[in-house]
């Protein structure tokens, strides 16, 4: 048995790579599904009728008041109890997507409501329908407004993907724990995992700043 960190790292290279792959897939799936759902949540919060608004408001408040770990555990156990055979990966991604959707919903709502009323009135005055107003006046502005907070949520999802290790999804953190239980190098391998998460999130943060600069209005 080899005893240096580098030798152990070399032995574990595929395990770690798979772990990163699973972490990235979880995050991408959750961000994508959560954002699509979240846009509808946001639209319902702004343009829905009273009943729809109340229902969606309850949904976002309950989801945002519950820790992600509870959502992940509940999704995993409840889906099995009601006979949906999701398995840990899908149940975990479902929980993260739901969590993401409530956050994106709030972001979209905030962005749409931040647009001055005069814009809608001006659009009406030149004879645009509501759909036209929305797609070519409100939505582009809202998107720009959303971007920083949305990137933040994306980084949040990568961090939340670690919670799937608790229900046995072999993502980066669970793989790291497996490696440590084999070679007892907890210090080195937790540092490695931390470093990898840091790189991903730092990258997302800087990519967000770059996109924000690119899409900013010339001043």
């Amino acid at each position, binding site marked *: 048995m080899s005893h240096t960190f580098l030798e152990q790292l070399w032995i574990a290279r595929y395990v770690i790579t798979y772990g990163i792959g699973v972490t990235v897939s979880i995050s991408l799936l959750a961000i994508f599904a959560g954002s699509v759902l979240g846009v509808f949540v946001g639209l319902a919060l702004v343009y829905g009728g009273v009943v729809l608004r109340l229902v969606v408001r309850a949904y976002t408040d309950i989801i945002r008041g519950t820790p992600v770990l*509870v959502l992940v555990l509940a999704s995993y156990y409840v889906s*099995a109890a009601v006979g949906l055979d999701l398995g840990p990966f899908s149940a975990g991604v479902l929980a993260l997507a739901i969590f993401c959707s409530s956050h994106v919903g709030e972001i979209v709502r905030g962005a749409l409501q931040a647009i001055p009323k005069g814009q809608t009135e001006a659009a009406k005055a030149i004879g645009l329908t509501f759909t036209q107003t929305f797609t070519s006046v409100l939505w582009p502005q809202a998107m720009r407004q959303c971007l920083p907070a949305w990137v933040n949520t994306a980084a949040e999802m990568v961090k*939340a993907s670690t919670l799937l290790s608790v229900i046995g999804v072999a993502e980066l953190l669970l793989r790291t724990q497996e490696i440590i239980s084999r070679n007892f190098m907890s210090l080195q391998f937790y540092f490695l*995992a931390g470093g990898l998460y840091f790189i991903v*999130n730092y990258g997302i943060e800087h990519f967000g700043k770059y996109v924000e600069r690119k899409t900013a209005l010339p001043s």
Partner: protein
Amino acid sequence: MGYTLNFAAVWRNFDFLLSGLALSLGLAVISILIGAALGLVVAFALTSKNRFAVVPARVYVTVIRNLPILVLVLFAFFALPQMGLRLDKIKSFVLVLSLYSGAYLAEVFRAGLLSIPRGLTEAGLAIGLTGMQIRSSIIAPLMLRNVLPSLSSTIISLFKDTSLAAAIAVPELTFAARKINVESFRVIETWMVTSALYVVTCFLIAAVMRFVERRLALPR
């Protein structure tokens, strides 16, 4: 599917859930208090002109904010003993959550500090206060009032992070729920009640913060 709701098992263990909730709140309060003290110092360092203060503060905030808290929790409990620092599970979790809240609160406080006009510092200097006196009796109180709205959401999110202590078997609310879930198989009921307890607590925290905000608001 034929699933009939039956809350009996959950009510039987309700005091277990409540003591879990009490522990969650306790963990949150202690960690957030330590984190707030730390965050205040770091926020002053971030906004200072001294490079030797800015750089370490910026590194601390950036590193902590870009790491998943579960990694930090596991690191503190399983890896720190290798460095000779052996803490029990509650202490190691409080250590992590304090450091974690310190980084998040520092960012909240920093934004607040930037909104304080420079004239106040100058006025303080003019009446002969030292830098420390100006910070503690002029700038910090004003800044705290300004940041209350964003402080509220940060505190709620830190409270929710106490659920992570379940990963190292601290018997807080999530751990208690998981135990009842596994022992009674009343899956849906357990998670409904647990989630409700978290949601209600978050609402109460938000209400308390709004109350404080109203009490401290300047008369118009």
